[in-house]
C-alpha cells in the first residue's frame, strides 16, 4: 500500500524525489505522451481503412433517421418512413456535388434537387432537401438543422411522409469532405397522378405555389449499406483526447496546488499558462465536435 501511495506521490505531486515537479509533467513523460498520441493517430488511420467510410466522422443514416423522427415526435408529428428511392436520389445528389465540385442545391448546369428525386423513380407531390457538410456526429447535423428556421421547417413539415438520407465522402474544393443529404417527399397520390398525365411536366403539382419543391438548407445522407465496426475508432479517439486533456489538467492542478502550499519556487514552465491553454483547447474541441460543419 505504501508503495502505491509513494508512486502516486511521485507521479502527481512535487517533492524532493522528483525535483519538486510532478513526475507526470517531466519532459521524459511528456515525450512519452507525445509518442503515444502519435502511435494512436497512425494506428487509428491504419485501422480506419477497413472502416465504413474511411473518414473521421461518426455520422450514420440510421442515427440521422432516428434523430429526425425523434424531432418530429417531439412536435406531435407522425414519423417519416424511410424511402430507398429518396435515399438513392440523395446519394446521386451527393455524388453529383463531388463530380461537379459544388456545394449548393442547384448544380452549375442547372440540375435541381427534384431532378434527382424524379430520376430515382419517386413521383412526388411535395419534396424538399437539406444539405450538410463536414460535421463529425449525427447529433450535430440534426442540431444544426434544427437551429436553422428553414431547415427546421423542412424536418417538421407535416406534408412530408417519406425521407431518404445519404452520407457521402469525397473531395470537394481539394478538401476531404463528408456530405450529408436529406431528401423529403410525399408520393403523388393516384388522383393527382391522373391529372399529372394530362398536364405538361413543367406544370406538375409541386410543394409550393411557385411549382417547385421546398428546398431546405440542410444536409443530405447517402443511401448506403452500413456495416458498423465493433469498435468505433472515431468515438474512441475523441474520448481518449478528452481523457488525456482532463488528466493533464488534473496533474497540473494538483502539482500547482501542492507547490503553492509548500511555497516552492520553480523555474520550469508555468502551470497556469498550460492550464489556460488547455482550457481554450477543450473549448475549441467541444466547438469542433458540435458545430464544425455547415448546413445549406
Amino acid at each position: 500500500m505504501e508503495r502505491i501511495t509513494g508512486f502516486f506521490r511521485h507521479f502527481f505531486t512535487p517533492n524532493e524525489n522528483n525535483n519538486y515537479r510532478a513526475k507526470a509533467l517531466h519532459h521524459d513523460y511528456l515525450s512519452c505522451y507525445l509518442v503515444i498520441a502519435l502511435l494512436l493517430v497512425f494506428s487509428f488511420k491504419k485501422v480506419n481503412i477497413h472502416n465504413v467510410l474511411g473518414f473521421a466522422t461518426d455520422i450514420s443514416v440510421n442515427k440521422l433517421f432516428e434523430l429526425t423522427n425523434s424531432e418530429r415526435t417531439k412536435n406531435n408529428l407522425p414519423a417519416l418512413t424511410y424511402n430507398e428511392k429518396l435515399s438513392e436520389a440523395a446519394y446521386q445528389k451527393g455524388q453529383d456535388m463531388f463530380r461537379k465540385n459544388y456545394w449548393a442545391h442547384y448544380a452549375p448546369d442547372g440540375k435541381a434537387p427534384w431532378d434527382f428525386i424524379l430520376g430515382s423513380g419517386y413521383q412526388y407531390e411535395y419534396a424538399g432537401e437539406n444539405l450538410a457538410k463536414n460535421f463529425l456526429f449525427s447529433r450535430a447535423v440534426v442540431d444544426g438543422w434544427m437551429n436553422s428556421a428553414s431547415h427546421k421547417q423542412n424536418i417538421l413539415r407535416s406534408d412530408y411522409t417519406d425521407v431518404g438520407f445519404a452520407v457521402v465522402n469525397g473531395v470537394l474544393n481539394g478538401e476531404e469532405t463528408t456530405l450529408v443529404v436529406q431528401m423529403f417527399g410525399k408520393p403523388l397520390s393516384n388522383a393527382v397522378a391522373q391529372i399529372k398525365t394530362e398536364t405538361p411536366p413543367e406544370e406538375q403539382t409541386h410543394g409550393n405555389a411557385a411549382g417547385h419543391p421546398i428546398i431546405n438548407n440542410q444536409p443530405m445522407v447517402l443511401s448506403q449499406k452500413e456495416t458498423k465496426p465493433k469498435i468505433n475508432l472515431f468515438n474512441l479517439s475523441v474520448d481518449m483526447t478528452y481523457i488525456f486533456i482532463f488528466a493533464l489538467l488534473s496533474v497540473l492542478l494538483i502539482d500547482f496546488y501542492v507547490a503553492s502550499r509548500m511555497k516552492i519556487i520553480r523555474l520550469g514552465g508555468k502551470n497556469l499558462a498550460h492550464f489556460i491553454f488547455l482550457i481554450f483547447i477543450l473549448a475549441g474541441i467541444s466547438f469542433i465536435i458540435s458545430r464544425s460543419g455547415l448546413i445549406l
Partner: protein
Amino acid sequence: MKHLLKTVTHEIKKNLLDYLILLTAGILFIVLLQFLSGSKILLFTAVLVFTSFYILWGIYHHAMTKTLRFKNVLEYVLIAFIILFLIEAILF
C-alpha cells in the same frame, strides 16, 4: 485552496500583460473557429496557429521573466504537439 488562489492572483498580478495576451489569443481562437466552420483544413489551421502562438508566448514570457531555458521551451513544445496530434486524429 487559499494558497492556490493566492499564488494564482500573485502570478497574474506579476505578469498581467502576459496573461492578458494569452487570454485574448484564446478568445480570438474560439471566435476564429466560429468563422471557419465547414472546412476541416481551416479549423486545423486555427488550432495550429493557436498552438504556435502558445509556444511563442512561452518563449516571450520566460524571456521577460529571465527564466528562459531550453527545458522550459521544450515543455511548451511538447504540450503543444501532443494537442496538435490529438486534434489531428479527431479532424482527419
